[in-house]
């Protein structure tokens, strides 16, 4: 699943980057979360979503520590 187009668009990418900087997160985190929500949208597909979100958050923590 590809990321939503707003993550690929130059103008919106700048907006996303600025907001992420302000909240001390990275756009990658938002992108990953969007992708998982997109993938799991629709009835019957939300099982396991919290675990996926946790995984993404943990990956962000690891990334932050490494940085």
């Amino acid at each position, binding site marked *: 699943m590809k990321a939503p187009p707003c993550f690929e668009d130059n103008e919106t990418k700048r907006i996303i980057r600025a907001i992420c900087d*302000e909240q001390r997160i990275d756009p990658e985190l938002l992108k990953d979360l969007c992708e998982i*929500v997109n993938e799991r949208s629709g009835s019957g597909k939300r099982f396991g979503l919290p675990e996926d979100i946790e995984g993404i958050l943990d990956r962000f923590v690891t990334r932050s520590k490494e940085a």
Partner: protein
Amino acid sequence: MYLSKLHLQNWRSYADVTFAFNEPTEKRSVVLIGAMNGHGKTSFLISLYLGLFGKFGLRHCEGFGLLADEDYKSYRDAVSKFRRNSAVSDEPTVIDITLTPSWRDTDEEEVRVVRRWFFSGRNEPKQGDAFEEVDLYVGGRLQKPGNLEKDPLLLAQERVERYLFPPHVAPAFFFDGEQAQKLIETSGEEGLKKAVRVMFGTKVVEDLAETMRQYLARIRQNTGGKRKTSEQQIVLEAKLRERQTLNDQIAKKQSDLQKLEHDKDAKEQARGTLHENLARMGGSVNANAVQIQSKHLLAEKEEADAERSLSETVKNLGLSLAMFRLAPAIRNRLKAEEQLEGWESLKRGTIDNRDKVLATAMPEPDPLLGNLSADIREKVRNRFGEALERIYNPPPFNCPENYLLGHVKGDGKTRVLAQLAQAQSIESSRTKTAAKRLRDAREALEETKRDMERLENLPKATREIKEQLEQLNSLIQEGIRHIGALENEIKVAKASLKELSKQIGEIQEELARLGPEQQRIAIAERVCRALVDLQEKLTPTTTTRLETQVSKHFVNIADRRFRNSSIHLTTGEPPQIQFSDGRPPMLLEVNSGFERRAFGIAFTLALAEITRRRLPLVIDTPLGNADSEYRPRTLKALAEFDLDQIIILTHDKEVTPDLVEHIKGQISQKFLVEYQDAEQLSIVHPDRYFTA
């Protein structure tokens, strides 16, 4: 991606056909499929919706917009109608679609969806799960159902969406011209914006915001007992905010410090310049004073001399002026006297010759007058003499009666006239020279006076510079004090920052020891804040993007009078066309059918562009009943659209062979579909098209 194969079996008029499409090239991306009305164009288009998405695709087809995904009965009925009437009952209806990555898709895999519908002996759709089955191949591999408890059709649907795109995206790529026109008439601008929200991904952002809120509520509930950690988390957040504020303050102070230092440097530079000026002025005082004094004395003397000279010249000027005035009278008098002199000379000559004339007139002895007495003779003689004199009386006109300038004779007169002119000119020139000399002398004197004044004012200028210097010194001192104070403040702030960072570190370490949930809560909260902000900022961007893209395509396709126009979508109002050349705006819906169609096509092209997906564009009857001006323009706009594959379904009166010439450089393939009445089926002829 491009549509590489479409196999239709028992689908409307298609008994068993395969459209095999070549891989398009960068320049040749257009596929033309010609078919007369009722020969299979719409069947081709609908097969893409139902083949890829089954019941989820039906409501996106023309005429099925009001259906819900759950309306299974309508779906079964619809598929029954789409099934070929003369199909053999035990043969399923099959749509087999393959989408292949083009040379531009480096990270995609080929996706093949094979959907089959089964019918009973009376061509009635089979009941329950027996009605439909779907096979999905990704990269040539059949995707097996992993979760046996899950509905296999739903599972396949999820996968199709994952590997391709969701069904709501399909109308941006598979549509007919009329459908595009209806898009605006039925959906309204809110519907259009919603479509863009979905395509652009901002809907996903909204969904994520809601998901994250739910996630936070859930995780907080799970960690409800660990109140302490939550409190610590709050303290941490507060300290982080405090640290951010402190960082901002330090940055501001450092910026102020930089400005102060810059200001101090500028003042020090100005002080140096003043010092230099002062030194230079001291030197010039001594060097120039003597020279200026001496020049002043000389100028004063020259002025006096010049005045004297002018005064004398002016005295002589009286004579010159008198002569200037009298000269014409003298000149005239001399000329008149010259005339008088000439007359007198002539008269005198005649009188002097009188005796000779008389002797000629009255000779002695005179045979003619011989008998006259001497007395009579004398009287006649006198009368002749008087008559001769009378010739010169009165003197000629303008001749003076006497001489005023009788002493000037002959050439003397010419000399006198020349001398008069010379005298006049010399005096005038002398006066001018004398006046100029006086003027120059006065100017020179003024200049030396100014120099003298400057010399006298030098101590004042020096005093002023000294005052400026004192002021600058004071300002520099003040600046240094401010800099010192600010440096201290920064030092203190940095110390606080260090302490704060230490405290933050300690709390974070403690939180980390207590459990990863707290970390997740903290990050999830930040994500939530970011998403709120993001939704707010992305909404106007999305609308603007939609307006820009739709306007671009609309202007490209629509009539020339819309060249300076743009489309505006305002909430609660129908789409409006605005003009940059001062014409009043107009509602789109008041325009002709073709303009509305142009908008529909422009909108779908904009959607396709905004999705940033390189899917095949399939358009049924794009030109409709457009006139001969619109047709090539629209066709070219479509052919030049930046996608891997553009499939145009058309009848013989729409994209005519003549019209094809306009896009022949972009055509990759042609097909001709013909319905055979006898067999009641459509035959596909590759590499054929309508003939002129």
